[in-house]
């Protein structure tokens, strides 16, 4: 292939691409920029979130039969003469600098009225600063770094709970278990992987334990790609811990469980932190050995039995994409609805009006597909009504066991010893 040919293809792409966009602009529309990792290591997650955002936009624009959700009647946003939502996607490739560049382009060239994204906390960090400087509202549905809402930004709003709150949930759960089962852990051990997430989680877990009066006897950070965890597990055994908190990716979560069994390490409970433990593969590989593990989650499929809305929306999505919602996609979906709700209440696409409407957001929990009490932002832009849930693997399936008011099954406590199963 000669260079000339390549060059002509490239030039052709340059010339024709704007044509695609121009055609769609004729109708009254609300342009929202969505910045997600569409290529790179997190591409599959990014694509999933893109699908759910498109589903949300489609429900608002064209309606969804039988789903009783505000704005889901179709026909766009009523207060803006039924203007339709138009999503303009950009790929940040997991790179904070690219995220900022794309945010700038969406605001200045694509003239979006609001931004949504970016999943990665570090990309959200840079992209939201661009929005702040340009005075454009930024809604973040999925990044969990606590720092993001400590920046005192005026234009930044986050619907998901952050890492601090998630770890808080662990301790709230323990408190509730204490009331219900009369068990208070005396010796807590922590086993977390050693990249950004695990290290940060350890730090918060230790800090909150001190504040809330729990005793941490051992805290281990191990390399996530480790092929054996024997010495780590021996340390755990020696610590005589009665409760283990663990943050692992898939491979290491499986390896850890196998090593626990080999070495007979059985605390009263294993409290895992989402990620590897939530993966279908975790249960498939370990089979019965995966039972009784608790995991902190943001969403669970069995919640569909509690809230009819969750089942309806999930069915709609599953029919099209042959897979269920998960914690990420459910949060992205919710994020766009919160943003659309604010734009509708603002009755205008002026950024300041949208910002004001966002800050006045008050959506009750029963209108959401999340296990939250609702959406209401504090002065820092953090949703104060969000919360995580705790699921437990029972008979190979995830069951929501906490908060108790939305639990689908009672928790099994303590975890039986390995030889007594």
């Amino acid at each position, binding site marked *: 292939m000669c260079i000339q040919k390549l060059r002509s293809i490239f030039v052709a792409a340059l010339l024709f691409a704007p044509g695609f966009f121009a055609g769609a602009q004729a109708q009254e529309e609300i342009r929202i920029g969505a910045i997600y990792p*569409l290529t790179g290591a997190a591409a599959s997650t990014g694509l999933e979130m893109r699908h759910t955002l498109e589903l949300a936009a489609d429900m608002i624009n064209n309606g969804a039969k039988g789903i009783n959700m505000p704005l889901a009647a179709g026909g766009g946003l009523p207060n803006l003469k039924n203007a339709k939502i138009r999503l303009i996607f950009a790929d940040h490739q997991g790179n904070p600098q690219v995220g900022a560049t794309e945010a700038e382009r969406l605001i200045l060239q694509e003239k979006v009225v609001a931004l949504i994204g970016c999943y990665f906390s570090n990309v959200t960090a840079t992209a939201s600063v661009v929005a702040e400087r340009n005075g454009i509202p930024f809604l973040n549905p999925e990044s969990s770094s606590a720092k993001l809402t400590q920046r005192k930004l005026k234009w930044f709003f986050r619907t998901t709970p952050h890492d601090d709150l998630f770890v808080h949930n662990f301790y709230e759960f323990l408190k509730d278990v204490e009331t219900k089962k009369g068990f208070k852990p005396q010796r807590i051990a922590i086993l977390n992987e050693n990249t950004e997430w695990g290290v940060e989680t350890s730090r918060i877990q230790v800090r909150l334990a001190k504040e809330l009066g729990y005793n941490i006897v051992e805290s281990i950070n191990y390399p996530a790609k480790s092929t054996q965890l024997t010495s780590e597990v021996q340390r755990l055994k020696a610590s005589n811990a009665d409760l283990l908190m663990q943050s692992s990716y898939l491979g290491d979560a499986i390896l850890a469980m196998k090593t626990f069994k080999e070495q007979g390490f059985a605390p009263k409970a294993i409290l895992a932190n989402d990620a590897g433990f939530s993966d279908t593969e975790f249960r498939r590989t370990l089979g019965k050995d995966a039972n009784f593990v608790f995991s902190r989650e943001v969403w669970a499929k069995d919640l569909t039995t509690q809230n009819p809305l969750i089942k309806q929306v999930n069915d709609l999505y599953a029919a099209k994409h042959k897979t269920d919602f998960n914690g990420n996609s459910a949060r992205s979906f919710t994020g766009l609805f919160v943003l659309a709700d604010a734009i509708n209440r603002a009755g205008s696409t002026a950024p300041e009006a949208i910002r004001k409407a966002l800050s006045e957001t008050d959506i009750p929990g029963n209108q959401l597909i999340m296990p939250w009490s609702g959406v209401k932002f504090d002065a820092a832009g953090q949703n104060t009504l969000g919360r995580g849930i705790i699921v437990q693997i029972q008979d190979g399936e995830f069951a929501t066991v906490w908060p108790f008011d939305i639990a689908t099954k009672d928790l099994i406590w303590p975890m039986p010893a390995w030889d007594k199963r």
Partner: protein
Amino acid sequence: MTPKQRNTLIVSGMGFALVLPFIVSNPSHQNYLILVLMFAQIGVAWNILGGYVGQVSLGHVAFFGIGAYTSTVLLVSVGLSPWIGMLIGGVVAAFFGLLIGWICFRFKGHYFTMATIAVAEILQVLFTNWEGVGGAVGLYVPLDQQGWWAMVFNSKLPYYYIALGLFTVTLLANWAIEKSFLGYYFRAIKDDPEAARSLGVSLTDYKLVAIAISSFFAALGGSFYAQKELFIDPGSVLVTSLSIKMSLVTILGGIGSLFGPLVGSVLLTGIEEATRQILGGSGMGIDLIIYATIIIAVAIYYPTGILGWAKRFLRRGKKAEDGA
């Protein structure tokens, strides 16, 4: 090209660069110009070691990261202006470069390259776990203080001129090196280390000089990045992909030549931004495929880089003229 022609070209290029942001007024487009200058600047820094001395480092992001972290930590903790923090960062990086060089210059060729990758990876892990510098969460540059002293601006214009200034200073330093005895020593080390040594050029000493200068300027680029994006974490200023990009702009533009990194950066950043803007939203990675194809094509058809090709092209044109 005669020296006179060359000077005219440089002066008019500089003049053009000075007025460019007034022609390109959309801040989003100005942002691309800043990116071009930023990657060109760190490319030039890389080129001093990789191009002139032939010590290919794929861990240069370590110095970039040290620069970014030093100025930002000093700004966040004691409120020191990034202008001073930037220089301190440069000095810290230069010393770190000396240390790394002292260890890694024992390795030759590919082994040196591998050692530099390892150093950068180690640094990334260290910074991820070092709470004093924000650890995994990263560091935010406060937005409340703006202006020249704080190096935080709402407009793109100041960033453009700072990037242009940094690029010019780095280029001048490179030019001074090229013209001085160092330039000859460096090239001698690259072309025939044994011969250079037999003539009394200490290989290790001059490689150390090169790595110190190269690290210093790479660190300045890091501080600038931090002030531009206002947020740094190990995932943004200590990633391997950035090391590769520094070397890529130089190699594509013309390794071991003064303006190679600029040409490479214009090309690479241009392709990257254009393909991503047009096709990135599709989520199918077409932009990256095109991007990679162009890089491969350049590597095959212009192995001496775009600048090397242009020089040959000009020379051929001149010969034809002489013949006529």
